[in-house]
């Protein structure tokens, strides 16, 4: 017996799912979210948010260690308590997890606890989750609905993604970690191999290195942080290496042998040179795969491509009434992409005037030390796309605020289409750049050209002045360089 039908039922309570649900409720839809583990999804339980808490601890630890650079003296040795660092991280996560529950309740969105299967178009069967929850688990919110058959006019799949597993190097939770274990270890390892240098791998490498661990990053591609601009990645690499991170690019892990309390990684570079790396733990950070299984999508005939659900850019799949947003709808697999895509999807259902998301305008941030942030095309991609480019660069060393902060290393790079003055991309490495990038994102979305950026007043003294200077550099009129 079906319950009262929903207008919109969203499978997955991650950032894509819960934001879509709130927007749907705002638009007057009777809305429900099905979640099997944790409101807020990976992002705020096992991803973006708790890692930022860990990295903040590492950052303060780093500054404390370098207090003398700022004329400060700390009596005695600065140390840390791993369990307290992790406890803080879990606490941040718990607070936000509760916050999502509150927001859903406030917006009168029903939460259904369990695992969803789309039994047919317009109907979802929720049963107890078969997936063992990652521990420790935040408690299920009060007042959730349980197992049963739920009818809904529109079903949005927002089930996210999970760590990709390489055959032979399967994470075991003990010696070979994914981000779950890396975020919540019983103790910090003394040595670590990080397989993969994307945002997740680099953030953990940066965190553990700051906490005193010997870290080796193994990247199969010739460049670390492969999606970033090559020049930015090179600056970042230099800083990482200066901090003591060992980086091996064009190198892959071919075999892993597990000892009692260590792993032996056999690596091989692109020229066939072999090496053996011994470390206490291995973090596998080789990307994520979409959670598309067990939802009944195959049976409905929902079209997939390379593991992701194919949509029209507004969340609509080939099956009317079934939608997909966020990681499960394909890259870039970022929380803010999922949120925005969810809003577009719901507004499209409502019949509002929407546009498919412009994927070249989705910013990306990595919170390693130094931070990396970017939006749009890299210089290489811009040229590949046939643009004649004008490139601007500005180094942190020319910025007063950066010097005052004691952060004189970094680069702001801007890429313009020489013909139209369109801002094609902006790439940054250095202190606080994750908070700066949004200036360029707004500029790109408003389709400003170099002219408006040059005519914009940037406050002094701020790091943001470098954004101005970089643009001016592209047009041969930089001041402080």
């Amino acid at each position, binding site marked *: 017996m079906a319950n009262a039908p929903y207008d919109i039922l969203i499978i997955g309570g991650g950032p894509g799912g819960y934001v879509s649900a709130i927007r749907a409720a705002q638009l007057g839809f009777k809305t429900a979210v099905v979640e099997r583990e944790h409101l807020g999804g990976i992002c705020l339980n096992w991803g973006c948010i708790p890692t930022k808490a860990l990295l903040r601890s590492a950052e303060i630890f780093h500054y404390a260690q370098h207090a003398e650079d700022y004329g400060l003296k700390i009596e005695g040795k600065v140390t840390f308590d791993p369990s307290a660092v992790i406890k803080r991280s879990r606490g941040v996560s718990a607070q936000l997890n509760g916050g999502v529950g509150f927001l859903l309740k406030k917006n009168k969105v029903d939460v259904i606890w369990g695992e969803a299967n789309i039994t047919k178009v317009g109907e979802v069967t929720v049963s107890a989750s078969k997936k063992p929850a990652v521990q420790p688990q935040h408690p299920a919110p009060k007042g959730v609905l349980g197992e049963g058959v739920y009818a809904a006019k529109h079903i949005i799949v927002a089930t996210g993604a999970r760590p990709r597993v390489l055959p032979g190097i399967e994470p075991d939770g003990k010696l070979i970690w994914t981000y779950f274990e890396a975020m919540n270890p019983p103790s910090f390892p003394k040595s670590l191999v990080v397989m993969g240098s994307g945002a997740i791998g680099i953030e953990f490498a940066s965190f553990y290195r700051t906490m005193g661990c010997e870290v080796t990053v193994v990247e199969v591609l010739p460049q670390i942080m492969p999606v970033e601009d090559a020049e930015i990645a090179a600056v970042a690499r230099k800083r990482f290496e200066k901090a003591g991170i060992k980086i091996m690019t064009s190198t892959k892990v071919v075999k892993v042998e597990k000892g009692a309390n260590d792993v032996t990684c056999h690596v091989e570079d692109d020229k066939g040179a072999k090496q053996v790396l011994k470390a206490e733990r291995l973090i596998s950070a080789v990307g994520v795969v979409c959670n598309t299984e067990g939802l009944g999508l195959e049976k409905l005939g929902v079209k997939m491509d390379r593991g992701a659900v194919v949509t029209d850019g507004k969340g609509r799949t080939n099956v009317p009434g079934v939608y997909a947003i966020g990681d499960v709808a394909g890259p870039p697999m970022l929380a803010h992409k999922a949120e925005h895509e969810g809003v577009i999807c719901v507004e499209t259902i409502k019949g509002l005037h929407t*546009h498919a998301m412009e994927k070249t305008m989705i910013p990306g941030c990595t919170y390693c030390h130094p931070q990396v942030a970017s939006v749009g095309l890299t210089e290489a991609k811009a040229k590949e796309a046939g643009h004649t480019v004008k490139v601007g660069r500005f180094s942190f060393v020319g910025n007063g605020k950066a010097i005052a902060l004691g952060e004189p290393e970094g680069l702001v790079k801007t890429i313009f289409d020489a013909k139209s*003055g*369109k801002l094609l991309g902006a790439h940054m490495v250095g202190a606080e750049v994750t908070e700066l990038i949004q200036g360029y994102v707004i500029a790109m979305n408003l*389709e400003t050209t170099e002219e408006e950026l040059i005519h914009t007043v940037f406050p002094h003294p701020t790091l943001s002045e470098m954004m101005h200077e970089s643009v001016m550099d592209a047009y041969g009129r930089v001041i402080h360089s």
Partner: protein
Amino acid sequence: MPINILMPALSPTMEKGNLARWLKKEGDKIKAGDVLAEIETDKATMEVEAVDEGTLAKIVIAAGTSDVPVNQLIAIVAGEGEDVASAAASGGAAPAPKAAASAAPAPSAAPAPASAPVAAPAAIAAAAPAGARVFASPLAKRLAKDGNIDLARISGTGPHGRIVERDVKAALAGGALKPATAASASAAPMASGMADEQIKKLFQPGTYEEIPHDSMRKTIARRLVEAKQTIPHFYLTVDCELDKLMALREDVNKGAPEVGGKPAYKVSVNDFVIKALAMALKKVPDANVTWTEGAMLKHSTIDLGVAVSIPGGLITPVVRNADTKSLSAISNEMKDLAARARNRKLKPDEYQGGTSAVSNLGMFGIKHFSAVINPPHATILAVGAGEQRVVVKNGQPTVANVMSVTLSTDHRAVDGALGAELISAFRHYIENPMAMLV
């Protein structure tokens, strides 16, 4: 005084043309005889030459703009020694004859600051010559400028209808442009319709009398403006020999029985024309149509309007089923309709509808003219005077009675070849009038 460059008429019948390209840029010095721009119609491309010397202060209509009405302001030239920036700002909203342009600057104009350098004309001003603000992103403005496309002709799909990059790219890639720009839409009526006070200022007070329009005058003005603005007219002219028709007419009228001391009918040449056009439409039924946006209405009856001049105007009563009526019936019906038209006694159903019409100015000795189509008609036949002309037959000059007729045709409904077929059929009936009787 800045010189307004107006869209030229390349032929007497041209109503609008496409501005193909500009050969001079804003800021270019020009001298008399320089080619400023190329104008194209569907038949020809012609050059617009500068008449005076000066500096091209402002291009009002961007290259690639189609259907620019004749006399629309297309550019402003600053005369020698004039400030180019203020010349550019002066025109904008007053694409009227020179005198009016400076006498009455339109209040809606957005004059560029006088100090603005010519090299960097405000994109907004360039985009919206009529002063209506166009909302577009900076990138969209630049792309439109570089691509020489008028932003006012692009529909925006950004927030609140803002024109964004994708819209300009779509337009540059050949996407649909708005048929009439906001600019030209508002400018065109201004060109033809200056404010009454502006017009009166052009004449000495006391030298004219003001006669208020009656409803017929207003209707004529409204319908003919509508016709000329919405119907793409084209014109086909043929000469018809009338000698056989004149002979037949004489016979027919001679044989008219007397009723009450008067002949029962007296068939005029115009009655033959009505009958011949009706027969032609019967023979070429594809031309017996009416254009609507949704479909073509192909009519099974042949109803013809006949323009009747009356004091203070004209009216076009309709002869229904003209193809089935005899000449004498048409003749008597026309006499009745015309008499009642003069007394303004026609009922609406007597002057509404029809697919074509006859307008005859032959009695005034007019040799040839072109008539304005009277909606919803698809064609109208303008009939000139029958007169003796020298024609060449078998290589020998000889004298014949000849009448020139011109068919105005709505190109949406009747194409050139079809129109030619219709007017040829008409000529055949006129030149072989017995064919109408059998």
